[in-house]
């Protein structure tokens, strides 16, 4: 098993756990637990098998959901403090514009249901193929596209409503 491949999988799985849990320490714990499972579980695929990554993400996701449920039972409701930040590759004005847009997208993502948010992030952030997403979420491959499309359309709708709201606020303030 190459160390760099394992590092890439670990890094991605950690970010997914962070996207679910919104807390670095919890996300780290979840990935560590999942790694111990990956080492000892008899049916765990082994790297460099391509099926290891979706399998590992699935374990991390399930552990993160357990963690969330535990938190909810304990009364903690402050979840999903995601921090979508801008990359720093463009001119200042463009950066500011892109930062605003990313902040809006982050906000719109928060308003999606858990299921819709995770499918959008698995595809658009983590770059999984539909078959892999189906494996991670344990759903039929045929329903990935329709679920994803519904989620994206909701995201688009939320962004458009927000844009209209901003325009109205600006007009009123003039």
């Amino acid at each position, binding site marked *: *098993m190459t*160390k760099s491949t*394992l*590092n890439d999988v*670990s*890094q991605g799985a*950690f*970010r997914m756990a*962070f*996207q679910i849990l919104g807390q670095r320490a919890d996300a*780290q714990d979840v*990935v*560590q637990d999942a*790694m*111990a499972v*990956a*080492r*000892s579980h008899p049916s765990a695929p082994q790297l460099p098998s391509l099926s290891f990554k979706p399998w590992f993400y699935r374990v991390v*996701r*399930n552990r993160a*959901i357990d963690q*969330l*449920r535990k938190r*909810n039972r304990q009364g903690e409701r402050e*979840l999903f403090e*995601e*921090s*979508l*930040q*801008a*990359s720093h590759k463009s001119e200042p004005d463009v950066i500011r514009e*892109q930062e605003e*847009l*990313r902040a809006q*997208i*982050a906000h719109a*993502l928060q308003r999606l*249901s*858990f*299921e819709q948010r995770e499918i*959008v*992030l698995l*595809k*658009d*952030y983590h*770059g999984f*193929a*539909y078959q892999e997403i189906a494996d991670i*979420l*344990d*759903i039929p491959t045929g329903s990935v*596209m*329709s679920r*994803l*499309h519904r989620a*994206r*359309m909701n*995201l*688009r709708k939320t*962004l458009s409503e927000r844009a209209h709201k901003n325009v109205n606020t600006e007009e009123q303030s003039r």
Partner: protein
Amino acid sequence: MSSSSNHTELREMLSGYVDGELTQQQSQQVSQLLERDELARQIHEDLQQLKQHIATAEYPSLNEADLNHLDSIMNDRTASSLQLYGWVAVVTGFLILTVPFLYAFLVNDTIALWIKLGATLLYGGGLMLFISVLRQRLLTRKSDKYNKVRL
């Protein structure tokens, strides 16, 4: 299928088109839709932008020490070996204790046949019940608590 429902279905394929997950025939159908449908073009453009922005979002990363720690967990040969030896020991011990006992029990002429039969049914039935519960647990894992998550 009516023309409008076909239209709606094609619009639903826009996500697959943006992700490059459609067949060649489906892609051609969506391309034709994009040529004639202004709304579909707008949705297509928006979806591409959304995808691009989400892809370049930044989230925290694990540092080198964290990654090394995970690597050491995954490649902890001592833990893997201990686990393997542990299972071998448990299974061997179980066999050493049960097989001779079972043999002696079944061939013992001083024990009445009805007792042998009764004991075999009792333990055999218990084992079957255990397997059925285990099987049920495994089956329910397929439609498990991580599906349709509501939090």
